[in-house]
């Protein structure tokens, strides 16, 4: 859009993404994605057009909700029309469309009684799906496999149906799932960008499937038939932009059915873009503003965008699930549970598998517990292991995974040692090939590389320019989200502007840092020491000025020591200082030296040691493994028995083979401080007050800038400690410090010498591009001399977003282990205004029936606090749903609250703010980020 000279206004409630950065759009609104808010913004900004097909289902739903308003205000819907969106999303209408154009939907029949139902089921063939009429979101849909179940299930569905009729539909469970990414322009030109084949057969959501591109097991006749069908459907729908079409294909006959379409940019289109080098969202946007496909340039080749990419490599996507974190071994299926994904590129399928597994960064033990052929996150590994003793036919019968994939996976299982080594497929130095959209037919202009050991020609020739390598954050998981993409992108931009050749290593297809035109060179590779070293050696160790490890979360930081040991210069804070901050004993010594109080703590390597150590400390204790992300297997233990119960899990998960026991400060206020250091000076960018009570992971807590409940003296102490820590460690770059304040005393809990999760939030709250400055500091292109203390015109609140509704068996009680998968942010004139907006953006609902529980006397404390604040507020308490405290008794209430979609507040401060909002029913100010600063 910007290339076209169009002024862009962006609305999104997510602070963590580079999208809501001031440098991305012309005007940015970090506001709740609600129809009312968007109406207000349209009223102020008076846009000529709106584009809603780039932001997933959220954007589509908003566009549909605003249909009349947009027409009234003469705001043009760019690209695919709302009518088309509605047509594609309505199951019945879409089915009719398929029938009209002669494309097959799964065979089905509508029946009115059991007799008809049985007849239909016989004709269609079991298994079938029974769908009652007029039910929302798949409610009442049952899957029937056995004839004897038919009658009972049929009666149930007939009873449930609003019209008394039931749709009997062929179940395509177990068939192959094939997808096409299609682009169409307003001149009816239509191309398919990429074909993709799900390794997991139908029954597993495509977002949950291991996906390979291009399709591997279809003949050209099969492929062209599906390709033609997808184009026909997209034309009939009238899509102007991108569309994803999904098919089910019977592997024994080649018969196919259309499953669904998504008339928008999607997770699949992002994957297809990275898989092919063809930027679908960019092209779809150009089409939306009126371009014809032939008139758009393919920036990889400098030729027309009217062509279909040819791949000369294999792409594999594996989802990243949070089951390890949630302690679940859940089956995956038709509902999305993964938090992210990784993509790999290889010359062969086996190479792509090995690289994707390396990129997942999962701990793989030798033997799988409870191995199963049911679709789970471990199925891939179980299949590989099983193929050592079972035949392809046997595994096929159990999984319906195409035999071609099984034969290939068998090659991986047939290793000399009996153990699959995903690190070494062939013992040979890799070369780097280009992703060029055209399989080498034309000379590519943009350097987007992958490594392979199955080629001889090395196409990544190092330049003589000053260069730095920037390590990304890998797949998105709980505790390491899109914020590290924001940081990585800001670092790349800063260094590029300063004349550096920027070399990015990352493997996440969902990010902006893996857009080939963001950096000078993109290596789509696993983030392991060996993989990164291959790249550095290829670039010439002498030419690489250094590696930036502070931007890609713990993934990048974890490589600092090993890369340093191999002679690579780690830029910014020294590797020794990184360790001093991260390693428990050294950290403690430093704090003692600086005279900064810390919590009493100790480490233990075994269960016995932990119990012994615990005796010298005061319960409750915070038990946590060392060197892990997002508080994995972190527990507050209240006594010896509790400790005994938890210690094993904590030990088994610890990467550093020991656990840490901290004295836990009950009732403290937790403070998160983000600072920058330039080697000598310290800049304290943000002192965030955690709104939720101590013990809840900072990533799961609401937090507010500026802090509201700290005395000037405490603030001075926080500044003083921060400065001492940053300067004594000679921090060059980021430093995140976690503190606790109890009874006016400030205690330092932890120091993280890297970009924290809150960097984008703080940057956007104070209007200072912290990641950019941190990058420049690390190449000595900037210092902090004269940096002014930030002053805020607005309060800014960050709210967590939880995935609990996707994990019904999971305990939603918040504790020291992080569980949120995203966040929102909002500005407000008052703390409560910002809090309310952020919470609403996070999907919290403060209306409806009251849910109040008395948990450990907290309700009484709240009542007291409210009464102190005014009688009116006390009344409001009755209207709100408050569940307070992290005490064990609270679990049931919290579960209930989650089930009913209610807000849980875990602090008096939070409760007070909500009560004020409920009472005031205020109309909130909408703030453009551009106007948010002093």
């Amino acid at each position, binding site marked *: 859009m910007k290339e076209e000279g169009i002024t862009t206004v962006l609305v999104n409630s997510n602070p963590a993404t580079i999208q809501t950065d001031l440098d991305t759009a012309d005007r940015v609104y970090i506001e709740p994605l609600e129809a009312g808010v968007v109406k207000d913004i349209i009223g102020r900004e008076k846009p000529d057009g709106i584009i809603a097909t780039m932001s997933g289902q959220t954007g589509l739903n908003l566009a549909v909700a605003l249909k009349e308003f947009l027409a009234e205000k003469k705001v043009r819907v760019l690209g695919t029309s709302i009518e088309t969106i509605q047509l594609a999303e309505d199951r019945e209408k879409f089915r009719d469309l398929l029938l009209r154009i002669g494309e097959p939907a799964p065979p089905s029949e509508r029946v009115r009684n059991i007799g008809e139902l049985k007849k239909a089921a016989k004709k269609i063939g079991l298994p079938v799906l029974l769908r009652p009429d007029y039910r929302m979101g798949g409610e009442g849909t049952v899957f029937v496999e056995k004839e004897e179940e038919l009658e009972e299930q049929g009666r149930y569905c007939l009873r449930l149906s609003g019209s008394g009729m039931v749709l009997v539909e062929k179940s395509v469970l177990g068939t192959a799932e094939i997808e096409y990414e299609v682009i169409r322009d307003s001149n009816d030109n239509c*191309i398919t960008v990429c074909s993709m084949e799900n390794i997991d057969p139908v029954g597993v959501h495509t977002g949950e499937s291991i996906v390979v591109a291009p399709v591997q097991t279809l003949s*050209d006749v099969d492929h062209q038939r599906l390709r033609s069908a997808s184009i026909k459907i997209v034309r009939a729908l009238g899509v102007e932009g991108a569309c994803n079409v999904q098919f089910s294909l019977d592997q024994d006959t080649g018969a196919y059915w259309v499953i669904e379409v998504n008339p928008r940019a999607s997770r699949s289109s992002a994957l297809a873009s990275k898989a092919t080098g063809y930027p679908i969202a960019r092209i779809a946007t150009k089409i939306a503003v009126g371009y014809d496909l032939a008139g758009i340039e393919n920036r990889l080749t400098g*030729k*027309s965008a009217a062509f279909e990419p040819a*791949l*000369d490599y294999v792409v594999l996507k594996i989802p990243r699930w949070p089951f390890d974190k949630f302690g679940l071994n859940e089956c995956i299926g038709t509902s999305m549970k993964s938090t992210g994904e990784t993509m790999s590129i290889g010359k062969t399928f086996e190479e792509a598998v090995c690289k994707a597994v390396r990129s997942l960064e999962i701990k793989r033990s030798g033997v799988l517990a409870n191995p199963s052929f049911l679709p789970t996150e471990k199925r891939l590994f179980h299949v590989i292991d099983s193929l050592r003793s079972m035949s392809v036919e046997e595994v096929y019968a159990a999984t319906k995974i195409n035999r071609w994939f099984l034969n290939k996976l068998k090659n991986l299982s047939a290793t000399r040692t009996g153990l699959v080594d995903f690190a070494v497929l062939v013992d040979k130095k890799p070369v780097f090939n280009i992703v060029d959209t055209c*399989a080498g037919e034309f000379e590519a202009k943009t350097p987007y590389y992958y490594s392979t050991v199955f080629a001889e*020609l090395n196409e990544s020739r190092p330049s003589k320019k000053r260069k730095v390598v920037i390590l990304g954050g890998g797949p998105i998981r709980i505790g390491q989200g899109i914020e590290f993409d924001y940081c990585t992108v800001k670092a790349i931009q800063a260094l590029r502007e300063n004349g550096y050749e920027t070399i990015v290593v990352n493997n996440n297809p969902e990010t902006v840092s893996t857009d080939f035109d963001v950096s000078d060179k993109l290596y789509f590779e696993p983030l392991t020491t060996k993989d990164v070293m291959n790249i550095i050696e290829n670039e010439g160790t002498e030419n690489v000025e250094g590696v930036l490890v502070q931007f890609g979360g713990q993934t990048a930081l974890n490589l600092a020591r090993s890369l340093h040991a191999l002679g690579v210069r780690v830029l910014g804070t020294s590797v020794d200082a990184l360790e001093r901050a991260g390693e428990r004993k050294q950290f403690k010594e430093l704090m003692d030296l600086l005279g900064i109080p810390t919590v009493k703590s100790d480490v233990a390597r075994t269960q016995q040691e932990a119990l012994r150590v615990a005796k010298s400390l005061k319960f409750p204790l915070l038990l946590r493994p060392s060197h892990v992300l997002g508080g994995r297997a972190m527990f507050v233990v209240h006594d010896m028995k509790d400790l005994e119960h938890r210690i094993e899990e904590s030990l088994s998960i610890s990467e550093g083979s020991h656990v840490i026991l901290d004295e836990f400060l009950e009732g403290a206020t937790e403070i998160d401080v983000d600072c920058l250091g330039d080697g000598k000076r310290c800049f304290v960018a943000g002192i965030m007050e955690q709104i939720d009570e101590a013990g809840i992971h900072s990533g799961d807590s609401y937090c507010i800038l500026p802090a509201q409940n700290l005395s000037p003296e405490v603030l001075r102490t926080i500044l003083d400690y921060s400065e001492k820590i940053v300067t004594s460690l000679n921090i060059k770059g980021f430093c995140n410090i976690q503190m606790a304040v109890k009874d006016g005393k400030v205690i330092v809990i932890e120091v993280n010498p890297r970009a924290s999760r809150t960097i984008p939030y703080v940057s956007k709250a104070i209007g200072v591009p912290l990641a950019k400055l941190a990058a420049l500091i690390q190449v000595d292109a900037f210092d902090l001399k004269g940096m002014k203390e930030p002053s805020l015109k607005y309060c800014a609140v960050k709210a967590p977003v939880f995935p609990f509704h996707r994990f019904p068996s999971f305990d939603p009680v918040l504790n020291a282990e992080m569980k949120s998968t995203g966040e929102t942010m909002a500005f407000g004139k008052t703390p409560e205004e910002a809090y309310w907006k952020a919470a609403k953006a996070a999907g919290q609902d403060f209306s409806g029936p009251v849910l109040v529980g008395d948990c450990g006397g907290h309700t009484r404390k709240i009542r007291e606090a409210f009464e102190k604040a005014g009688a009116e507020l006390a009344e409001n308490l009755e209207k709100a749903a408050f569940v307070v405290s992290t005490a064990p008794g609270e679990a049931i209430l919290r579960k209930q609250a989650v089930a009913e979609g209610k807000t849980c507040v875990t602090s008096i401060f939070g409760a007070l703010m909500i009560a004020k909002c409920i009472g005031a029913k205020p109309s909130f100010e909408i703030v453009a980020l551009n106007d948010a600063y002093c």
Partner: protein
Amino acid sequence: MDRKGAIVFSDGSCVVGKGFGASTERTGELVFNTSMAGYQEAVTDPSYAGQILVFSYPLIGNYGVNTDDMESPRVWVEGVVVTENCVEPSHYKCSSNFSDFLQKHGIPGVSGVDTRALVCKIRDEGVKPAAIKVWDELPEPDVGKEAKEMAKKIREFSYSAQNFVEVVSPKKHEEFIPKKRDKTVVLVDCGCKKSIIENLVARNCAVVRVPYNTNSKEIMKYDPDGVMFSNGPGDPKILKDTVKCCRELFGKTFVFGVCLGNQVIGQALGGKTVKLKFGHRGGNHAVKDLETGKVYITSQNHGYAVTGVPKGKEWFVNCLDGSNEGIKCEEAMSVQFHPEAHLGPLDTQYLFEEFMKRL
């Protein structure tokens, strides 16, 4: 033990890999195709006669071969070069794996080589004569020494000097009659793909297939509604008689051409043909219809392009290099790409209907 295989160039340099298919030696022009599927259609396409085909897509043979996807009864390529040859295919129609299929047809294949490197070499240096050889397991060959011998033969090889059409064109007339017969077309077979005949027959059009050197009088004896010049191999310049025949047909009947047929018609209209540096071979090239401005993704397989199309008669152009992709005038219409597909997109099959409408 694996067999050895190699691709040898005129200077004696070679790329060594594993052999598959038949243990034999062939010489031809080394070309590449960027399609990701459709290898069976490609190797049985007579237009590939005299050429050694490099597949840029690394995994070939995944779905084996079957009895339906033959574009002609035999394999026409001189050899096949792939990164990985799949010996355990999986497909509901599969009747054999690719290696056994090539062996049966006496064609050598080399796998385990960097096909992208070969594609880039051809892209940068142009298509070039080369040889391919697969040795028996034993005795262990001295590849370097044999390559030098082979290089001599390569230097003597000239693709454009040979009349490959003569080799691939049928010797007899043959008729294909649809159930319902609306029209009759004489198809001048210069190396026709089966799919062209199928597309015509499917549109109730009877096809009389005649050899490439049939003269116009003989053709007109069938009293056809139209005449079609098919695809085929080799340098179109040498088809002087076929071009003459085409020119004679203008005005007498409507003429349609595909690929080599476009080059024949182009020459008959006074145009010339030039050899492209590395040709267009794949299933992803877009062409633009100059009348409507619409673009179509097409199947392509040609090493020569028509130049000097008379003013106003150019129909389609290639979106990537602007070369001629089709001609339309009162007497004839033709396209440089393959509306019959197989391999490749079916998007331009509508052209057969256009042809029918012109009859």
